[in-house]
């Protein structure tokens, strides 16, 4: 199976005593990859590097056989295939619909198609009637679901999730994990950070552990 990402000799120093180091890491396409490690181990930094939000100070990254260039315009094209949902996501002011429509609008998707896709995705994340809700009225868990929906509506090739279940109640976990399985079955590569070791077993994911910024494999 083809590798979605191949990271080689990556080094990125954030402070005097923290440096993210990845000797070699291959993330296979169409699988769930779980990043685990203590707080401050470098999970979020690694996800930001994969999302092309951070340019690593050293090393190289390959995305589906294409080296990731440092050029802004090329990285922007890559970011149209890779979407990151952050741990504490930011929702733009306005309605749930306007948040979900943003990425579609900038991709030139027609209005009727936007409505169809948004309705489907809101159903998938368990918020079918939330389209017209103002984001200021949402709870923490709902914000996280809307952010997930905003990423899913773009049909990303790679979905990066930074502790996506942090604000989701335990009762909704099986539903969320089933959604991940559906995505993977459809060919999406999922890379997510988690503090829940049991989750790795439940979603049959590939385990990647980080310790003090060093990827253990």
């Amino acid at each position: 199976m083809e590798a979605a990402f191949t990271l080689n000799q990556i080094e990125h120093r954030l402070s005097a005593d923290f440096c993210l180091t990845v000797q070699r890491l291959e993330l296979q396409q169409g699988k769930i990859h779980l990043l685990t490690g203590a707080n401050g181990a470098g999970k979020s930094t690694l996800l930001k590097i994969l999302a092309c939000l951070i340019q690593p100070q050293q090393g190289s990254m390959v995305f589906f056989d294409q080296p990731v260039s440092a050029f802004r315009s090329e990285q922007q094209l890559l970011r149209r295939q890779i979407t990151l949902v952050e741990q504490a996501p930011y929702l733009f002011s306005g309605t749930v619909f306007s948040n979900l429509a943003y990425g579609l609008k900038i991709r030139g998707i027609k209005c009727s198609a936007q409505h169809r896709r948004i309705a489907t995705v809101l159903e998938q994340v368990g918020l079918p009637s939330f389209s017209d809700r103002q984001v200021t009225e949402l709870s923490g868990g709902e914000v996280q679901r809307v952010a997930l929906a905003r990423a899913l509506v773009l049909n990303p090739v790679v979905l990066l999730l930074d502790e996506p279940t942090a604000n989701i109640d335990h009762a909704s976990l099986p539903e969320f994990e089933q959604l991940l399985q559906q995505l993977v079955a459809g060919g999406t590569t999922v890379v997510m950070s988690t503090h829940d070791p049991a989750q790795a077993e439940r979603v049959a994911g590939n385990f990647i552990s980080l310790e003090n910024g060093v990827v253990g494999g």
Partner: protein
Amino acid sequence: MLAAVKLIFSCNGDVLITVWTSLYTAAIAIILAALFGIPAGLWLGINRFRGRRILITLLNTLMALPTVVVGLLLFGLLSRQGPLGHWGLLFTPVAMIIGQMVLATPIVANYVHAAVVGADDRIVPTLRTLGASSMQAAWQLLREVRFGVMAAVIAGFGRVIAEVGVAMMLGGNIRNSTRTMTTAIALETSKGEFAFGLALGLILMAVALLVNLGLNFLQQR
């Protein structure tokens, strides 16, 4: 006071044309200042580069620029002997608009810069991860800080509608042409026409009140 109120409601031609001159010159000046100031403030707020601090300090200094100094510098440029004297702009509404634009641009840029710097840190990374280009991200960022941008424009408008120095030096206070509310107040009061000056002063305050009410209305939506 009663005479001033009567003058306002009598639709006096001099009052009307003076108010109109003030409003349209200030409106055009603030539109031009917004065209330059908003992108400048946004650029300064987003980018990190060497010399940025100096630019911010310069912008802060320009905010406090005395109106007579701007008037004086532009008078030098636009007067007959000046480098731009052949344009024949001195003592015209265009000269006043240029001067007021120079006054308002640093204010707009500074307020927008402050709004962008104070915006949520997650906005730009979120926009980038959704695939936005630099221009698309900048536009959405402005939408997110729109109240700060509106405050910038209102503050700039407040500065230009209330200033005397530029209007007096570059406009020349010519009746039915470049006489604004502020220059008319100064002139009429010196002539002893207190009621006329007071009438214009009341209108000026009403304009300020309306603009602020408009801002409050927009913020509540």
